[in-house]
């Protein structure tokens, strides 16, 4: 099941592991992505914390963690190929995985239909 934030992150949850990325809408707004800084394994993040940085040619943006937990992996492929976020924001261009410390937080997030309706109004 995939959940979305109003800040255009997504988290795909499988058991107690979440995979976090930014939405296709967000990568489209950013334009050409030239650098991504992902968190290291073991980092504790709280919901809403700045967890990653994504840089386009023109600007830098923070990526917030949609949920609290412990980072178990950052996407190493993004170091050599940050453009993966432009090519496949919903898949190969994921940012990091974490174990969720409070799955109840998911109830505050949007499902895909709600997110699509949210973006349509922007």
């Amino acid at each position, binding site marked *: 099941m995939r959940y979305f934030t109003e800040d255009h992150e997504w988290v795909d949850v499988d058991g107690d592991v979440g995979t976090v990325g930014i939405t296709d809408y967000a990568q489209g707004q950013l334009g050409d992505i*030239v650098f991504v*800084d992902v968190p290291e394994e073991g980092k504790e993040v709280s919901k809403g914390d700045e967890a990653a*940085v994504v*840089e386009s*040619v023109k600007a*830098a*943006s*923070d990526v917030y963690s949609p949920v609290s937990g412990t980072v178990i992996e950052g996407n190493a492929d993004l170091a050599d190929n940050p453009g993966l976020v432009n090519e496949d924001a919903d898949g190969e261009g994921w940012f990091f995985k974490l174990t969720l410390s409070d799955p109840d937080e998911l109830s505050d997030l949007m499902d895909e239909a709600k997110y699509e309706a949210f973006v349509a109004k922007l």
Partner: protein
Amino acid sequence: MSDIDLANDYVEVELEHLPLDAWHRARGGRMVPFAGYHMPVQYEGIMAEHLWVRESAGLFDVSHMGQVHLSGEGLDEALEQLIPADVKGVKLNGQKYSLLLADNGGILDDLMFTRWDDGLYMVVNGAVKYDDIGHMRDELPDAITLNHMDEQALLALQGPKAVDALSRIVPGVEALVFMTGGHFEWNGTKLWISRSGYTGEDGFEISVPGDKAEALADALCVEPEVKPIGLGARDSLRLEADLPLYGHDLDPEITPIMAALNFAVASKRRREEANFPGATRILMEREQGAVSKRVGLLVEGRQPVREGAAVLDVEGTEVGKVTSGGFAPTLGAPIAMAYVPAAMAEVGTRIQITQRGKVHEATVAAMPFVPHRYVRGAK
């Protein structure tokens, strides 16, 4: 997710629409607030647009810039009281880069001016054009008439194939050389065209009546070499070309020598007369060097450093600032402009920069990062 750096040019003001507004939107331009107007930041993407300009020709809408016509008895002498250029030495249709200076030698704006047979035509930056006009109206004698040509649009066609495309539509422009211009006619419309620009490439700037701008932009974009290009790529192109941007790399705290614009005070006569604003300070800095200097930086790794990042000395003390920074599409690496103490300005000097708690390593680089390809005349 949140934008950290986009805020620079964004202010809460009522935005105006320029003549090509609908044209940009129809072509998929993403419009953002810039210098008080809705302006296109990109169409297909900054990277692709940037590379297109370096290999073909890009059409930029720079109608936000101020176009001014100055005329009247004693104009050259009067303008020389405000800028350090050799105004008198500029021949008919010749063009010069110069700086509007404050009394203390600080830079109020950078500008281009050209000699017309009935006076001088000047292009100033959009964000400060009303300040510039006010300053000139205050400082120039009553005999000088200043006309803000706000009914004119301004297009820039930039890139190695610009001359091929434009000369098909406006024959004769191929005879111009860098920093010269001429009056031309296209479909009964009067155009002023100069061979100049702000990308480091060969190219042209075209002043066209606002109500004819769409038709001209359409005609140019029919040419296979030409695509519309947004201001995002204009910024990365000018950064690679060592062209400072007013409000970022230049401001009233910066003198021409600090900005490494020594060529702006190149006239021996003007230096001997020393009668431009801030002449004492500027000429002293020219002899002895300024305490700090604008340099280009090659940044290690892939992460860009941005405007506002701090330059550190070996003890870790902040001694300078990044004034422009981004990713250079032509080089595939991050680059920046920064002000550093004179002792750290030599090419090859290692520099540390901090940004959001992270230290970046950089090296002072020879500029421009990408060689200029201006078409100069035989001397």
